[in-house]
């Protein structure tokens, strides 16, 4: 640290300048404008700084009220905000208004005001300090414009994400003889990004239905591209092979060929109405296994887990057969459900099993919504990850 030497000569001349400061001159040529008003707003006095900024003479100002110096919008603000605040708390700070100058020019200023009371405590005068704020106001207006632009951009992003998301989900599960299918999707956060979760329900010529639920790694445009690829590849391959494992393997091939860097987890199944319920042939690729909920509230995972898709090397996948009896429901979710977190605590499988067990037998669409909503409520309404749920119930 360096001690600054005290210049005794400079200090003396500084003190002299302070002593010679005439109070009247301090007032008249202060670096801010001073204006004194009656409580009614009538102008009584203003300093020279204010007169030179605004171009008024002391006489012309004396005939005016503060209202006459303000644009109409600011005038309303003065009466509805400034004056009540001043009356209630005795001061107002940093109010931005535009003054109307003598030649019609507008001068952006910041006002500080105090209310001066007489001996009886009644308001006697208002003192205004006026600060030239041209550059600050110009800067604030730019900020304001930027904020509005940012809000508009965020709104556009949300609308775009919602529109794109809609194209990646079936409008509503079709009605299928012998079974009821429900689907629910909830975007993460404020929905300003396209999520990676998807599901699809489609008819496979030959009296079967294809159902897929999946989770593409990542979010946004790149995830949307992989999601679209997955949906049309599955629909095309479903016609060519009755084996879900084979269909998922073809999807893997397509992903590695077209999108080297994306991967996904999925459950794909075919559902065929049979005499006593719905016959399911399914394959799970790195995804949570479907849960079968029976009429007594029993909940158990079905099938075997295979490799996720899109990684190097051919994935090992299995086909498993399951029968869903009338009244039973097959429930498939993405990890947005059981990995939902609150204060470091996970939603977890146990909570999901308990919810399904307690609601065994309710309709498939209702159950899908119930699961999605419960996971969102658990996160106090603000999901960190997107959530997809598909339910399939055999109808007797």
């Amino acid at each position: 640290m360096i001690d600054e030497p005290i210049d005794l000569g400079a200090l003396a001349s500084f003190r002299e300048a302070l002593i010679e400061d005439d109070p009247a001159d301090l007032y008249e040529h202060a670096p801010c404008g001073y204006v004194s008003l009656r409580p009614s707003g009538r102008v009584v006095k203003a300093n020279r700084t204010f007169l030179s900024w605004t171009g008024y003479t002391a006489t012309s100002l004396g005939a005016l009220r503060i209202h006459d110096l303000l644009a109409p919008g600011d005038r309303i603000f003065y009466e509805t905000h400034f004056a009540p605040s001043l009356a209630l708390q005795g001061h107002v700070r940093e109010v931005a208004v535009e003054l109307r100058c003598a030649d019609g020019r507008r001068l952006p200023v910041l006002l500080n005001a105090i209310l001066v009371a007489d001996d009886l405590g009644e308001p006697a005068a208002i003192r205004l300090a006026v600060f030239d704020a041209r550059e600050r106001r110009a800067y604030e207006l730019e900020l304001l414009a930027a904020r509005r632009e940012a809000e508009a951009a965020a709104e556009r992003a949300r609308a775009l994400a919602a529109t794109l998301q809609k194209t990646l989900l079936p409008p509503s599960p079709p009605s299928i003889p012998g079974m009821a299918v429900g689907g629910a999707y909830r975007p993460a956060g404020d929905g300003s990004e396209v999520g990676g979760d998807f599901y699809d329900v489609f008819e496979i010529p030959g009296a079967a239905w294809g159902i897929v639920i999946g989770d593409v790694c990542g979010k946004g445009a790149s995830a949307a591209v992989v999601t679209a690829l997955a949906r049309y590849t599955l629909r095309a391959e479903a016609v060519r092979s009755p084996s879900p494992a084979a269909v998922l393997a073809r999807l893997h091939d397509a992903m590695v060929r077209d999108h080297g860097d994306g991967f996904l987890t999925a459950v794909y199944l075919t559902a065929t109405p049979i005499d006593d319920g719905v016959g399911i042939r399914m394959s799970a690729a790195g995804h949570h296994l479907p849960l079968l909920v029976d009429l007594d509230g029993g909940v158990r995972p079905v099938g075997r887990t295979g490799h996720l898709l899109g990684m190097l090397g051919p994935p090992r996948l299995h086909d498993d057969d399951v029968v869903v009896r009338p009244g039973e429901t097959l429930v498939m979710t993405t990890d947005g459900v059981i990995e939902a977190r609150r204060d470091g605590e996970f939603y977890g499988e146990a909570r999901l099993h308990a919810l399904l067990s307690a609601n065994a037998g309710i309709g498939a669409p209702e159950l899908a919504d119930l699961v999605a909503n419960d996971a969102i409520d658990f996160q106090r309404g603000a999901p960190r990850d997107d959530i997809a749920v598909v339910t399939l119930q055999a109808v007797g």
Partner: protein
Amino acid sequence: MVFAHGFGCDQNMWRHLEPRFADRFQTVLFDHLGAGGSDLDAYDPARHASLDGYAEDVLAIVRELDLHDVVFVGHSVSAMIGVLAAVAEPDRFSALVLIGPSPRYLDDDGYIGGFTEGDIEGLLESLDSNYLGWAQAMAPAIMANADRPQLGAELSESFCRTDPDVQKRFARATFLSDNRADLASVRCPTLVLQCSDDIIAPDVVGRFVADQIPDATLVQLRATGHCPNLSAPEETAAAMETFLRELQPSIGTS
């Protein structure tokens, strides 16, 4: 006696007037949604896009507290909110006190309201200018203190501070309203308190209101500006006392 504050402030603006009536009346103070300590979750942009929504809120309070023989004291825009409430459920209201009322702020085909649409746009800009940075910085502090009014000193800074978005919507609902046709339907005795040099509600508007309401008394106050309840509580209270005594001699003496 129900006190309803106007645009730009909250129930604090009754602090000089309400105590003068609290000994003889059950007094009810409240904040409009978006102002003071109100619950923002209850704000409904569609319902509160017009003054009818605010009148419904007043009626909800009156019903919830099961009030009858209400003397409704409304300042500024709340004068018209009171008119709408009293027209909707006349049995609940025994008198209206309208302080600085205006049924139509815009000039309109021969009618003088005092403002043009450009002026109202100017007000919205003024609100924007004076809320810059406030939304993020101040809102949490006010939220945190809303249920602890004992923090008087700290809270004094937040007098009349309101949610900026709601404030702008309230400004539109207020200054673009037209309730001239509702005045003739008021059934109860009404006191119109007209300030001098009131740029928000000029003399000619106060006279119009008093002319249109069948049983209205117009009192011209010496107080200047738009908030006599703050700037001249004595004179305002005296005018109300006179009106209430003539209305029902027992009220002033019991």
